[in-house]
């Protein structure tokens, strides 16, 4: 069982974990962390991934690219975007096939075809869900849950605004990027729409995210 610690060492821990993954996995670019975001049209998954890309770049990941996969979007239809982060410049802009992490803004999407496709053995699911990680079972996959919908509403955001809260869950569960820089970038992005509430949604979700075993 893999246990995440949440201190200055977290990045190191994740990288060690990640290196274990990539040496076993069929990975093209060994040093790239691949995070696929799934949401519904209108939920703001692309904005969330863009904020994380921004924070990643300013945390020292010189390669931070976010490539949305565009279909014929309608509100409510499943959408996805690929976020790749690396210390080096990233050249491959093709959609992620084998993610290290899948972030899901609506737990019902876990049942949709494609959401978990290609997720690496030993990878991670971070999901907005009222359930606990123990209620999910995906073999050698770590599941992290937070009830972002309720948390976001409790800090004064309109019901259904979950794309800033989920960033807090991402920060805690992955340990890749600190919550402070993420909060700062959230406030930048939402400077005209409840910046403090959006940042607070991420902070509170960070505190309430539960990371399960595998």
């Amino acid at each position, binding site marked *: 069982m893999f246990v995440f610690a949440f201190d200055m060492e977290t990045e190191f821990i994740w990288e060690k974990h990640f290196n274990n993954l990539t040496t076993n996995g069929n990975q093209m670019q060994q040093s790239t962390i691949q995070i696929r975001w799934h949401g519904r049209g209108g939920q703001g998954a692309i904005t969330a991934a863009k904020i994380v890309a921004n924070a990643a770049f300013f945390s020292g990941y010189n390669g931070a690219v976010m490539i949305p996969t*565009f279909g014929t979007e309608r509100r409510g239809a499943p959408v996805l975007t690929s976020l790749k982060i690396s210390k080096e410049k990233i050249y491959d802009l093709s959609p992620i096939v084998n993610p290290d992490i899948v972030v899901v803004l609506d737990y019902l999407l876990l049942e949709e075809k494609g959401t978990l496709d290609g997720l690496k053995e030993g990878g991670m699911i971070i999901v907005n869900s009222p359930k606990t990680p123990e209620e999910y079972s995906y073999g050698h996959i770590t599941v992290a849950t937070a009830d972002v919908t309720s948390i976001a509403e409790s800090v004064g955001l309109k019901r259904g605004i979950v794309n800033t809260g989920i960033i807090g869950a991402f920060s805690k569960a992955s340990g890749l990027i600190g919550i402070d820089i993420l909060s700062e970038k959230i406030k930048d992005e939402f400077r005209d729409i409840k910046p403090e509430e959006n940042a607070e949604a991420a902070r509170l979700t960070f505190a309430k995210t539960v990371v399960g075993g595998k």
Partner: protein
Amino acid sequence: MHVIESGNVAAATGVKLARTQVIAAYPITPQTPLTEKLSEFVSKGQMTAQYIPVESEHSALSVCIAASSTGSRTFTATSANGLLYMSEQVHWASGARLPIVMCVVNRGVGAPWTVWNDHQDSISQRDTGWIQMHACDHQQILDTVLKAFMVAEKVSIPVMVCYDGYLLSHSYMPFEIPKQEDVDRFLPSFSSDCKLDPEHPLNQNTVTLPDVRPDIHGNMSPGYMEIRHNLQQDLICSLDVVKEVEDRFKGIFNRGGSPFIESYLCEDAEYVAVCMGSLSYQLRDVVDQLRNDGQKVGVAGVRLYRPFPNQAVIDAFSGKKGLVIFEKGISYGNQGPLFTDITSALYQVEERPFAHNYILGIGGREIKTQDLLDTFRKSIQSGRKNEIKTEWIGLKL
């Protein structure tokens, strides 16, 4: 200053830094966010340009032709069917020798309707007499817009800056925004010595007879054929200007340096993948993988498609064992246009590499890195055999 933004915003930022004076554009996916950003810059007073809304692409380029004829630095942008709707004016702009810069956010052409990426739109306009440059990432989009204005104004030929729809236009990555004072140092303001001016009326581009004839001063003036010959000559000569501008840019910004072909691990390579746009960067990972397997391979991205850099192609590829040419466009009834151009340039070389032609990513079909790897490997293993016929990757018949 570094930012993480979309490719369309990178393009708009370049247009703003170039102190463009007139913009006329009609929105079309995936170009739309670029024109939206420009209209935002203008409405917020961050840019002093005139933004002229129009009712079609044909009008957009017509407005640009008029504005450029009065000596203004002029910009437009489009994609796919929008580019084709302005096609008559595309020919006119180069014939009239106007230094307009246009971003073509590459998209497949209908019918059937598609909004996704391939190169058929700009490829179909390659014989219009415009210069065509391709960018591979957001930094190159911004930088190429700046260089394009300088080249266009030096040679009086319009320039298309082409970049992949969605893959680049709608993706986010870090790029540096140059300082305005450095851009001003690089790109002086535009002045034309042959412009429309009410104080000095003149006629431009009137009916030109098949043969030369004396003008009102008694001097022999060129016929249509001479004027068109000069466009061809000046396009060929613009290769030197493109290089000069690249060097000047590098001197100030310390970036770039490969205006014709951008090579990765090609020096000692026996086999080279060749393509245009962001695909050439995706292929770098494939090259790394094949190098790990001990294959001597490289990838070359063609940055300048018109004028075609024949000598640079000869210098880069003669002596190689094989070329694997990947294309997002096709000359229907023949083969990939880049394949034709490259093999034609190499015809005069004694030791010609074999060349294989693969068509892929048409209408946004996903280009899987694994497919590129398998294809490149297959081509290498096939030995020295030339293939005239094209093969399509990722086709599901």
